[in-house]
């Protein structure tokens, strides 16, 4: 494969205003309209319903209020306080996505130092993210501890007994620590009492310092067998997270078709004849075109995702690599999807007609317009074979369900294998027809 052919195609694309509009601006515009319609700027539009979360335990009112407030401020959960047995049943039945177990010694742990151990039951099939709950609990415990610290910091002398106001100040009056020491050693009961008071105060401060130096909480997650998760229950509450994968892949299909159709344009313009007269294999031409289509698609996706992130606070997955890997696999598949079509059609017009039809059908089956779950049963079976649907599912899992790469690895693998198969088919068509196929 010759890099110069890929660079050449990218340069041509970059110099072609129409191509830029079709592959970058149009998707941005349409996604923007959809994002504003469904997601709202900054993700402030209509949102998906809250996640049902049961909370088990009977903590003191102070902790209960703090936990209620913290969960409510997160804006993600519909909280139900209940007992352990009920919570277990509700999680198993899928009525609650998880149950949070609050330990009975929560208050002592908070104020006397030590890690607070919470429990979380969740359905193993659920996409519930324990990380979110952990962060909320940490914040809550931190606030409780910070409140105590602020209390001591603001009113340290409240610990002094009535009538002893100013005793500590009197004790430390003077120019040298020797004088203070003599006053404590030789002083009367008032000085000794002031000294004891001072030591108590210092001990409390030391205890507080220790409390902050330990892990605040320990969230122990346990799976509880239960019903299959309801597919309608969604991890992300930003509608744009659910729309973009379908739209992005749909636009990517058009970009890929346009890139493959370039074989026809080059043939009709005579440049392909010239390239084939150069000392390189004709397979190089096909592989280069695939790479170009893939890079072009990746660029388009990058712009869409960046715009989604900036304008609509779109989620880009649980880590830095899951979404890029899925995007590369998706672009690899779509880059190869239209190459066989380019090789079996006679001209760009024919390819464009057939390709548009195929794109619309695949878009429908793959879930670009409506979720595949909403299709009739027999269509769902056909839709499962739509390769663009695999790409949409993988992207949705990462973006909207915040799933890491290991969860979507089977889909990624499937995309890459399909891409290789389609490339092999393209090369076989080409080999079967010889260089004439490109002339």
């Amino acid at each position, binding site marked *: 494969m010759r890099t110069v*052919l890929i660079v050449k195609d990218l*340069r041509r694309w970059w*110099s072609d205003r129409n191509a830029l509009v079709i592959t970058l601006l149009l998707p941005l515009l349409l996604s923007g309209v959809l994002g504003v319609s469904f997601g709202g700027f900054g993700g402030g539009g209509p949102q998906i319903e809250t996640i049902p979360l049961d909370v088990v335990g009977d903590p003191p009112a102070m902790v209960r209020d703090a936990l209620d407030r913290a969960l409510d401020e997160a804006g993600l959960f519909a909280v139900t306080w209940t007992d352990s047995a009920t919570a277990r049943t509700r999680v198993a039945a899928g009525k609650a996505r998880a149950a949070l177990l609050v330990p009975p010694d929560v208050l002592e742990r908070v104020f006397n130092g030590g890690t607070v151990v919470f429990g979380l039951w969740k359905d193993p099939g659920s996409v519930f993210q324990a990380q979110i709950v952990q962060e909320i609990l940490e914040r809550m415990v931190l606030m409780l501890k910070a409140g105590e610290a602020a209390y001591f910091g603001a009113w340290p002398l409240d610990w002094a007994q009535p009538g002893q106001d100013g005793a500590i100040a009197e004790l430390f009056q003077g120019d040298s620590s020797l004088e203070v020491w003599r006053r404590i050693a030789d002083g009367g009961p008032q000085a000794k009492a002031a000294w004891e008071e001072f030591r108590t105060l210092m001990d409390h401060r030391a205890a507080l310092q220790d409390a902050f130096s330990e892990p605040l909480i320990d969230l122990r997650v346990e799976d509880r067998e239960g019903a299959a998760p309801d597919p309608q229950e969604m991890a992300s509450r930003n509608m744009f997270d659910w729309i973009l994968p379908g739209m992005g892949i749909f636009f990517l299909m058009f970009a890929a078709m346009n890139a493959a159709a370039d074989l026809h344009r080059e043939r009709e313009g005579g440049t392909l*004849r010239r390239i*084939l007269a150069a000392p*390189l294999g004709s397979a190089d031409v096909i592989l280069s075109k695939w790479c170009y289509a893939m890079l072009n698609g990746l660029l388009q996706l990058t712009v869409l995702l960046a715009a989604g992130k900036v304008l609509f606070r779109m989620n880009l997955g649980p880590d830095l690599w899951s979404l890029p890997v899925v995007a590369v696999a998706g672009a690899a598949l779509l880059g190869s999807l239209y190459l066989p079509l380019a090789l079996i059609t006679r001209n760009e017009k024919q390819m464009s007609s057939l390709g548009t039809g195929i794109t619309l059908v695949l878009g429908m089956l793959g879930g670009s317009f409506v979720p595949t779950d909403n299709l009739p049963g027999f269509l769902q079976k056909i839709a499962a074979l739509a390769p663009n649907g695999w790409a949409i599912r993988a992207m949705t899992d990462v973006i909207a369900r915040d799933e890491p790469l290991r969860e979507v690895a089977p889909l990624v693998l499937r995309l890459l294998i399909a891409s290789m198969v389609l490339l092999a088919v393209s090369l076989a068509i080409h080999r079967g027809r*010889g260089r004439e196929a490109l*002339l």
Partner: protein
Amino acid sequence: MIQVRDLRKNFGDVKAVAGVSFEVGQGEVFGLLGPNGAGKTTTISILSTLLPADGGSARVCGHDVAAESHAVRRRIGVVPQELAVYEELTAAQNLDVFGRLYGLSGDGLKRRVGELLELAELSEHANRPVKGFSGGMKRRLNIMVGLVHAPDVLFLDEPTVGIDAQARTRILDLIGQMNRDGLTVLYTTHYLEEAEHLCDRIGVIDHGELVALGSKEELIGQIGEQDTVRVAAPPALWEELLQAAASWEDVTAAGIHRGKVQFQCLDGASLLPLLGRWLAERGLGLHQLEVIRPDLESLYLKITGRALRE
């Protein structure tokens, strides 16, 4: 540099090339002359390894085009009939892309691009997108792209189609200049004047067959036709003039053609003094004089029974 033996190529029932044989020597400009659909482009496509032949053999620069296609491709340059350049790229970028396909890079490539742009008188437009070029400029660039890797043999497939006379002259001059530098050229055209002006030897191709082959003079010699001289004269003198012409050496036939007296002779130029003197003796001059020499058009007409552009 090029040896073609009994080359054949069919597209279904259509015989595009039907047993063509010819040779082209080093530094020669060889023209394939014929109308559209005669088999010129198919022949060039086979020689440039783009199409496999159905029969016969062809060697370019000593390499078999079928068995050693990569070796052939390194030695040839191809200028297709279409304007095979990228309109979105600049002239320099076009040359750069094709140079890199042949393994050129760095300063060597940069220098070569500069030389070719200068040769094509496109240096001032090196960094302009090709889509803004005139037809002639694009054609010149089209040829330069075929030369970027300094090939030994250049295949030019109708490189002057669709451009004005002035641009065509510049291109023909350019090709002549390259040939003087030692380049072997196989040139296809359906323009007689181009073949006559540019080519050392010409192969006339029709319906996939090479129907005549040789230098311009040899080909015209094959026709065996004579010059035709026509002159205007008063009808009253026609009979007398025809009788006089019968006694003139070289004149093989005389008659009246569309109001003029017409003579067939071996050399039209030698007839003019005799004719001028005869008319002057009767107080007349040479008016509406036509001397028609046999040309490749006559040859083509004679061989195929139809004009080249029909």
